């Protein structure tokens, strides 16, 4: 990942922008039932451990190139995105094949409630994080700070 970020730095003009946007695994996704008043939370969905480790590796790579002086952070934030499903079965199928999420939701409503609304629309509401960096003009990267320095 650091190699990819170094390449991004190489092809960017000085002052050019790098945007890193990806699912935010630091917060739980929500399984929601859609009703006449909006959405109500039926459960939560965790990111699987492999992808959590990948996300930490990505965070580490970003931290290295920033502390190394290649990029300066300009802006960061998070927004929420809903993936809609026609029914609970569709949502379950989506989770069963998902690369990032664990394959089962942790339900906070009982089974009878889930069964009652099973044929109504559902959604997964997930967080997306983003960082906007600018390429530093210098051609001389700084030495990354050592731990405790």
């Amino acid at each position, binding site marked *: 990942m650091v190699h990819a970020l170094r390449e*991004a730095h190489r092809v960017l003009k000085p002052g050019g*922008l790098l*945007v890193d946007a990806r699912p935010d695994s630091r917060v739980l996704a929500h399984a929601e039932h859609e009703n006449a008043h909006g959405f109500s939370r039926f459960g939560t969905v965790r990111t699987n451990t492999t992808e959590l480790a990948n996300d930490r590796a990505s965070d580490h790579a970003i931290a290295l190139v920033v502390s190394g002086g290649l990029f300066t952070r300009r802006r960061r934030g998070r927004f929420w*995105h809903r993936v809609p499903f026609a029914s609970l079965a569709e949502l379950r199928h989506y989770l069963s094949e998902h690369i990032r999420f664990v394959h089962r939701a942790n339900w906070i409503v009982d089974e009878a409630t889930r069964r009652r609304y099973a044929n109504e629309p559902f959604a997964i509401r997930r967080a997306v994080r983003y960082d*906007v960096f600018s390429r530093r003009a210098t051609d001389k990267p700084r030495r990354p700070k050592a731990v405790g320095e």
Partner: protein
Amino acid sequence: MSPIGDVGKRVPIPSSALRPDPLNELSKWGGTPLVRGKRVLDLGCGDGRFALGVARFAAAVEGIDPDPEAIAAARQNRRKSGIRNVRFAVGAAQELSYPNESFDVVILSWTL
């Protein structure tokens, strides 16, 4: 294994259909001024969802992805859309074939 088979993460093409609308995503990052009139590189472009979505604001967009099937889908989507200022190529983010300082914006959308 292809020369780029051991780098980059391959994600199924249909997954892009479940991602945020590109203009909505762009609006969160800072809106159209971020790409307006600029040369943009979309690393890990998949089927071209983001590259094609923002192309009308940019001067030119290049999209690369390690998955040849994704690039084939991106090219097909470009033909359907009629957009002319976007090019797609198979490639890895770790080994870019572009000259130094050739882009104003590099996007890693759901890539790292």
